[in-house]
């Protein structure tokens, strides 16, 4: 286990390093001039040069990278070009909102996915199985804003049950009301992947010797399902959450824009539209680091839950 953890941490550090290079390269090397990109094609050369100096985008590439990275590692991404105040203040504030939304999504989608997948497995090949599988997969491949506008039309405009967007504040119940539609949109997309994995895990568990033994020794059906089948379909579900984490974070970009929800996604989208390069670099780096940390956490959780990995057996 110790060796696995060490290896996995090593991989995480490498990922973080590559991430920093990608963020730096894409935003600082590819274009001719950052100042030109911000000020537009009609600005005179003097003010472009001056802005480039201010932003610290002049000088040898390697120096610039180390200057940026050494600050970034301490959480200092410089000042936002638009608001003239530290990027990190904006990022940490919207990070909390985004994490709240991601958490609510997971709280809804994980039980739903496991239960849906188990029901599909119990009815394998029957109509209910096909309905769950086909609905799940169709929702999973549909862009989140398509599902989102259906949700807004249905629950906000036609029925008037929930607000069509905004940022949560005040009492917990009010916050939940605002967060529910964006969370349900993300849920709709993740449900397909999750229930498919849970279904596969449950089918395997249903056909296993230990489930047969549990049934034969006279355990009630719901105990067998809960203790043996559901528990085993949880493992692949956690694995798929890990692999969908970067997707979930990318999905925040579009979902938060649609619902006007002040989180990291909206921050990135606004920074990109306003060509606020320091803000964009900081926010993208944090999102990437977050995605990496989540997948690290999920991998360690899987290893801890799975004795074959925990005890260091070869695959």
């Amino acid at each position: 286990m110790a060796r696995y953890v060490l290896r996995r941490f090593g991989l995480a550090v490498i990922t973080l390093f590559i991430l920093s290079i990608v963020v730096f390269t894409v935003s600082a090397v590819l274009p001719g001039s950052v100042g030109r990109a911000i000020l537009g094609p009609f600005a005179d050369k003097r003010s472009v040069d001056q802005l480039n100096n201010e932003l610290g985008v002049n000088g040898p590439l390697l120096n610039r990278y180390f200057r940026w990275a050494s600050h970034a590692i301490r959480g200092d991404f410089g000042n936002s070009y638009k608001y003239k105040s530290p990027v990190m203040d904006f990022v940490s504030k919207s990070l909390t909102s985004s994490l709240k939304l991601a958490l609510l999504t997971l709280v809804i989608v994980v039980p739903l996915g496991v239960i849906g997948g188990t029901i599909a497995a119990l009815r394998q090949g029957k109509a209910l199985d096909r309905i769950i599988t086909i609905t799940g997969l169709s929702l999973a491949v549909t862009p989140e804003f398509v599902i989102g506008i259906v949700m807004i039309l249905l629950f906000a405009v036609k029925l008037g049950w929930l607000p069509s967007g905004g940022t949560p504040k005040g009492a917990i119940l009010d916050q939940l009301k605002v967060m529910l539609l964006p969370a349900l949109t993300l849920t709709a997309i993740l449900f397909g992947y999750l229930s498919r994995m849970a279904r596969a895990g449950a089918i395997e568990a249903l056909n296993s010797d230990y489930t047969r033994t549990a049934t034969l020794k006279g355990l009630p059906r719901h105990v067998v399902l809960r203790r043996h089948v559901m528990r085993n379909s949880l493992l692949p579900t956690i694995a798929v959450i890990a692999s969908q984490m970067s997707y979930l974070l990318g999905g925040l970009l579009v979902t938060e824009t649609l619902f006007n929800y002040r989180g990291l996604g909206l921050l990135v989208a606004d920074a990109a539209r306003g060509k606020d390069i320091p803000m964009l670099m900081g926010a993208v780096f944090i999102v990437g680091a977050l995605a990496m940390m989540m997948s690290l956490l999920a991998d360690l959780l899987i290893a801890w839950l799975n004795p074959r990995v925990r005890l260091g057996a070869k695959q």
Partner: protein
Amino acid sequence: MTDAPEAGTPHAGPATSSKDIRKELRGLLYRSKTFIVGMLILAFWVFCAIAPGVVARQDPAAIEPASKWIHPFFKDGHFIGTDRRGADVFSRVIHGAREIMIIAPAATIVGTVVGVVLGLAMGYFRGPLDDILSRVIEALMSLPVILVTLLALTALTGGRLTIILLIGFLFGPIIARTVRAAVLTERNLDYVRAAELRGERASYIMFAEILPNVFGPIVVEFTVRLGYAVFTMAGLAFLGFGTQPGSPDWGRSIFEERSSLLSDVWWPSMMPALALASLVVAINMVADAIQGMIDR
């Protein structure tokens, strides 16, 4: 969508040549309902992208502020109403197919070429090259594609070609992983050993010997990635990138018309949304059918 092709002819016997096998597989595909329905929808949108004027006679750019927000259906000569500028929604939806039907397939082709070359090299040579590239790919995959594309589009001036190359190069490594895995199982087979003993060049072995045998997984990966490319491109357009304001592109239309949703004017945003949904679901039906056929 797990509607795999129905069981083939029960006593067809072993197919003798690769031509027979291919014929049999094609036969299976044509009998799959998922494949046929997916292909029909796909063909419709391809046709709209090529000749939108045949399907929708009205000019999608004709603006008439006086007749804005006409309700659907078939009122004042508009099949599904008009948008906030009085343009015909049906015509805009049909014309909106073109941009995404150019960018998504082109980006997927770029990504597949990059992925096949990388994957063949990684799987065939292995060693340190493979180790390093594998780590880089794992790192890249933990980054949301749409995020990196957005980052790059802010710095570059984002024309159509830029978006195609960006999505293509970001998809390349993901495709490379699938190709590499397929090459690894082929690599130790006798025909590769034989070619090596004959003294063939590495490039010949990779492209002439191994590539035809890993074609199946590549086709599946291509169709699946095509779906993701549509998804990514639509997301970018929705965020206001890659298309011009006022363009009939579906993602862009939804972005521009979404505020009228709150006044219960649903058709200018919901119709392009339905079009987009039908396209991605169709692509995934085709992908699913091909996958089901190859897995047999």
